[in-house]
């Protein structure tokens, strides 16, 4: 793959993601003020000193935005990685084993998917204590149902191929078949799905935080910042729109990259290309 074959939209996406990752890594160095430091009046408008203005407690929005990338990115990424590992391992096991294992896993997955994700999360988070790892796990488990469905469909396509049969006849174990035969041949669609799930995780986390059930204050987090500043909207103060815009921008960037990955996959398959 040559660099110049990457379309401009994908470059925009990659640049945006890189910027956010940079902010997350070096937050204390680039942020002009502290995460919870009160530096001025409530909802002070933006000027040369405070670029985006101040929030509902007089904290610098730009600084909180930069610190917020850490929480948002970390939680969303952790949840996606766990959900992917879980979903892929279970779905590939189901596809390779077949029979009873497949039926039990798939029916249980159908059951989980018959409850809308947000509603399920609300029910579960109403009961569970509010810890960060609980939040990550809930997000991961709920999201893994979607990964499972895709993973099973993709793996079933590959599992009937001759080279898998050959591996079985050679006497390879299930682990070998899953990781050495099926995984490499399903990597491309799964990679695109990873991006989609990651974008979804960012949105989902922000929604939960916005509803007051995600990241707890005073830790900065984009969804939570929208919640903090939402009362200003009625007075025409756009402070809540800044973190909201940041969430939107990051998701657009991820989706742009995913879009390019998907196009590449479909052109590899040699179809008419646009389906």
């Amino acid at each position, binding site marked *: 793959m040559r660099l110049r074959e990457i379309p401009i*939209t994908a470059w925009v996406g990659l640049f945006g993601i890189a910027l956010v990752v940079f902010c997350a890594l070096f937050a204390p160095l680039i942020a002009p003020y502290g995460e919870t430091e009160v530096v001025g009046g409530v909802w002070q408008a933006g000027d040369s000193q405070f670029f985006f203005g101040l929030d509902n407690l007089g904290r610098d929005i730009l600084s909180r935005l930069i610190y917020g990338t850490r929480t948002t990115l970390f939680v969303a990424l952790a949840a996606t990685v766990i959900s992917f590992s879980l979903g892929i391992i279970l779905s590939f096991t189901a596809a390779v084993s077949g029979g009873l294992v497949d039926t039990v896993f798939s029916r249980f997955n*159908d*059951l989980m998917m*018959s*409850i*809308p*994700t*947000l*509603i*399920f999360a*609300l*029910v*579960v*988070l*109403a*009961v*569970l*204590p509010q810890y960060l790892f609980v939040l990550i796990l809930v997000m991961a488990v709920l999201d893994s149902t979607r990964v499972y469905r895709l993973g099973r469909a993709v793996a079933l396509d590959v599992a009937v191929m001759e080279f898998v049969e050959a591996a079985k006849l050679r006497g390879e174990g299930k682990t070998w078949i899953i990781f050495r035969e099926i995984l490499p041949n399903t990597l491309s669609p799964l990679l695109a799905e990873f991006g989609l799930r990651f*974008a979804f995780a960012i*949105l989902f986390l*922000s*929604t939960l935080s*916005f*509803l*007051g*059930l995600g990241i707890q204050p005073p830790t900065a987090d984009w*969804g939570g910042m*929208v919640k903090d500043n*939402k009362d200003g*909207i*009625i*007075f*025409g103060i*756009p402070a*809540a*729109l800044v973190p*909201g*815009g940041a*969430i*939107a921008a990051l*998701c*657009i960037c*991820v*989706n*742009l990259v995913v*879009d390019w990955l998907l196009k590449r996959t479909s052109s590899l398959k040699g*179809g*008419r290309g*646009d*389906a």
Partner: protein
Amino acid sequence: MSNSAEAGGQPARSLRDRFPLAALILERCLLSLILLLAVSVLIFAGVEALPGDFATTYLGQSATPQAVANIRADLGLDRPVVTRYFDWLGGVVQGDFGTSWASRNSVSEQVGNRLGNSLFLAGFAAIIAVPLAIGLGMLSVHFRDRMPDKIINVISLAAISLPEFFIGYLLILYFAVDFGIATFPATVYQGMGFLERVQTIALPTATLVLVVLAHMMRMTRAAILSVMSSAYMETAELKGLSSWRAIVKHAAPNALAPIINVVALNLAYLVVGVVVVEVVFVYPGMGQYMVDAVTVRDMPVVQACGLIFAAVYILLNMVADILAIVANPRLRHPR
């Protein structure tokens, strides 16, 4: 449809053979019912099995064991789980969701009012979004890989990435605060005139439409395109049909089943999207009720709302399946 009850009541082979479609639909309905029952167990058991106790939350960490025991007895938490589940389920079937722990009011009464409000909002959004999405999807296929398609593609990609609350607040800031042509918050009350009500929910409806439109349009486009790449479409193209005619006459009938599926899926999505939009616009619906209950850990309300949302979702998915079976004869003979 009148014979469908017979077909399921007694598993007579001849009836099943004579009315395969009715039997299939009945089977699907029964499956949904079982699913709903399983979901009710899941929601109830989930709330029971997980740690955390309302009594301790309510009284604080320093509560004496005696006070905690009193509250638990008061709320009926000291009885065995299975008994409580069947009590709860029996009540739910009769439309009684118990009493709220926090406000001591009847949950059913609240749910009754609010469910109507939520469905009104979601239904209104659906009426606008569905035709618009299908129209845009067809337009996008018609101009495939040309400027209009590319513009629609980029805009819809952006719209998918926008969180509901961002769209909501953006609309509030411009239309309610800056221009003053819409109302915020969107408070509706009983006895409100229909027109007035519609005017009040203009902004929440617009938000929901924007949220769901992009998804629905992209899926419609994909569904039509997968039909477009089939052999008979190539034939239609080669025999010189205009592309618009080919889409309307050949592609659309075959794309009907997937499009119905897309619509039903997105309506189900709408039901969930309502939660956030209601919170943004302070709209007195089910979503707002549920989120409030979750923050104070008011379990009967959470369980009731969870079950109702799941039921609507399952119902819509069932309708999607049945319509797809009716629209596509090939699905009637699963291999």
